């Protein structure tokens, strides 16, 4: 079975490019040239060099003795938290800034939830000498303030978004509006595998370095290239897409996607899209979407700003529909507990988003010789305030 998109950007029945005419020129330009550009030798060379020398790749694949002991399986952590800027987001922004340069764009816009994508975008813009504007929901500006300060220090302008639920969805709306109003000089660096074709496929390709490395590193460490499980959290789904990418056609590898359960899937305060959503169209693609009976988008909830999104990328909607991936959800509490556990057992403070993936270790019955890779998509520095509040409340 083919889990990649076709030339029109469809993953099965999901994907496509449902965009207003005002975005048509930019999107069709990207559609017609992205493969040629990013598969060219010069691009690949530059991308690879920056990933290693600038972002610090390959990120380690770390065997966790103590988690392995506890969960009675062989647990490896893919350390995307050790990348420059603290998450997997840098993989995509390096790729897209090189693309933007080749397209002759001089102004970069981005949306951000947790601020990790905003920081990663501001970072590559600083290096490339391009103007950078980041849209961020006002709620997220408040709960991820260290990242807001970083973006400013890096020279980016952060525009707080006051519409809707004031989180990631609304920041994305505002970035799209900016692009409509600035179609000529601007490139929009989308931060996940969402948006109109070719973004989902393009971002997945840039993130696929994660699973490319996992295969090589596993082979070195265990003699086998494929694990039994790959576990990743899903907001829009870019770190999961990157972690799954080179295993999609290895059916023996179980792919586990972990969504944000919020306060519980049935509480009305959740972001577990596959459980709560139906097929629908948002931000330019057809995917699963949390929505009311008459097609209005439901405002999601998660303690983690990066997972607080009412949709998922079309690739994941298709993986869900075809049962290629299994979708679980972790609540706020489960994620916080998992973050604390990893911190105290391994000395690694994970991002709240990544903590959702770690929480899934509690939910799966492993066999003793199972090889399990958990993608630690980012580090928890940005979440210290949330963590502290939680620990005070449980003490």
């Amino acid at each position: 079975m083919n889990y990649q998109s076709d030339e029109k950007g469809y993953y099965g029945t999901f994907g496509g490019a449902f965009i207003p005419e005002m975005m048509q020129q930019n999107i069709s330009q990207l559609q017609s040239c992205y493969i040629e550009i990013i598969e060219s030798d010069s691009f690949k060379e530059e991308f690879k060099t920056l990933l290693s020398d600038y972002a610090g790749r390959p990120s380690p694949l770390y065997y966790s003795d103590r988690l392995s002991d506890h969960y009675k399986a062989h647990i490896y952590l893919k350390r995307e938290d050790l990348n420059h800027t603290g998450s997997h987001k840098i993989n995509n922004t390096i790729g897209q800034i090189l693309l933007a340069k080749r397209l002759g764009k001089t102004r970069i816009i981005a949306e951000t939830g947790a601020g990790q994508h905003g920081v990663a975008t501001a970072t590559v813009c600083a290096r490339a000498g391009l103007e950078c504007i980041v849209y961020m929901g006002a709620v997220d500006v408040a709960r991820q303030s260290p990242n807001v300060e970083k973006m400013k220090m890096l020279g980016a302008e952060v525009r707080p978004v006051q519409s809707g639920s004031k989180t990631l969805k609304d920041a994305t709306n505002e970035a799209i509006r900016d692009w409509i109003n600035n179609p000529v000089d601007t490139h929009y660096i989308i931060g996940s595998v969402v948006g109109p074709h070719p973004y989902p496929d393009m971002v997945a390709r840039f993130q696929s370095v994660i699973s490319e490395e996992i295969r090589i590193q596993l082979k070195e460490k265990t003699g086998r290239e494929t694990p039994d499980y790959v576990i990743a959290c899903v907001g829009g789904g870019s770190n999961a897409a990157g972690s799954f990418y080179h295993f999609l056609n290895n059916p023996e590898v179980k792919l586990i996607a972990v969504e944000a359960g919020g306060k519980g899937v049935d509480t009305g305060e959740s972001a577990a899209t596959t459980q709560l959503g139906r097929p629908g169209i948002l931000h330019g693609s057809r995917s699963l979407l949390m929505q009311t009976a008459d097609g209005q988008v439901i405002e999601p909830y998660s303690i983690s700003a990066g997972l607080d999104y009412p949709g998922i990328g079309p690739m994941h909607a298709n993986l869900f529909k075809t049962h290629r991936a299994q979708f679980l959800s972790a609540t706020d509490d489960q994620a916080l507990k998992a973050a604390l556990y990893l911190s105290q057992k391994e000395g690694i403070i994970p991002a709240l988003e990544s903590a959702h993936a770690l929480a899934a270790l509690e939910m799966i019955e492993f066999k003793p010789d199972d090889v399990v890779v958990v993608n630690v998509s980012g580090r928890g520095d940005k979440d210290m305030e949330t963590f502290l509040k939680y620990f005070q409340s449980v003490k």
Partner: protein
Amino acid sequence: MENRITSLLHQKGENILSIYFTAGYPELNDTKRIIEELERCGADLIEIGMPFSDPVADGPVIQHSSEVALSNGMTINLLFEQLKEIRKTVSVPLILMGYLNPVMQFGIEEFCLKCKETGIDGTIIPDLPLEVYQEEYKEIFEKYSLSNIFLITPQTPEQRIRMIDLLSNGFIYMVSSSSTTGVKESGDNEQIAYFERIRSMNLRSKQLIGFGISDKASFERAAQYASGAIIGSAFVTALAGEMPIEHKVNAFMLKFLKTSII
């Protein structure tokens, strides 16, 4: 295909005044009264907005009206209910404008059927791409005599404009500049060059110019280059406030007419 839009374009080739408003704003049940008053005051064509939670092609004014309309309880179902008897009192062409997701959830064929039953003549669905319309929806729309209206912008290449022209069976919605709704029309040289470029293409479909048309002056400027123009945000702005809804509509429309109707 014949409907009220095609007849209007046939009968009145110039200075067509089209007005947009968001259904359910400012009050849930203003819809019918706004339409009736608009017709009475001389609107040639009326675009009824179906509010959506995430209107990415819209500026702050229509974002706000959509938000209010939704919190008032507006739905497509209710809109059809409100418009059930509209053809007893109103004869100008009516167009429903909105984003694809709510329409898709309603069901495309069901939606088109309801439009036909209600006396709706056309649709504007900005995020329904030409290609998808052509492949999946065209037949259904035509079966119910609905004109789907496509947008062009200053960025749209000539070849695509020609394609849109061939697919159109109403007018072409000419977006005045590269922008979301409600951004002020500039009237600068670049914009005039774009208007002239489109005019010189001699398209088979007539064009109405929209986005940023806010008053009589900008209407008249635009109307020189097309068959007329569309006013949205400026009208929606005029609907705020405490006066009876008919007064607000009337006061706004007076600005576009030489003599008062009242």
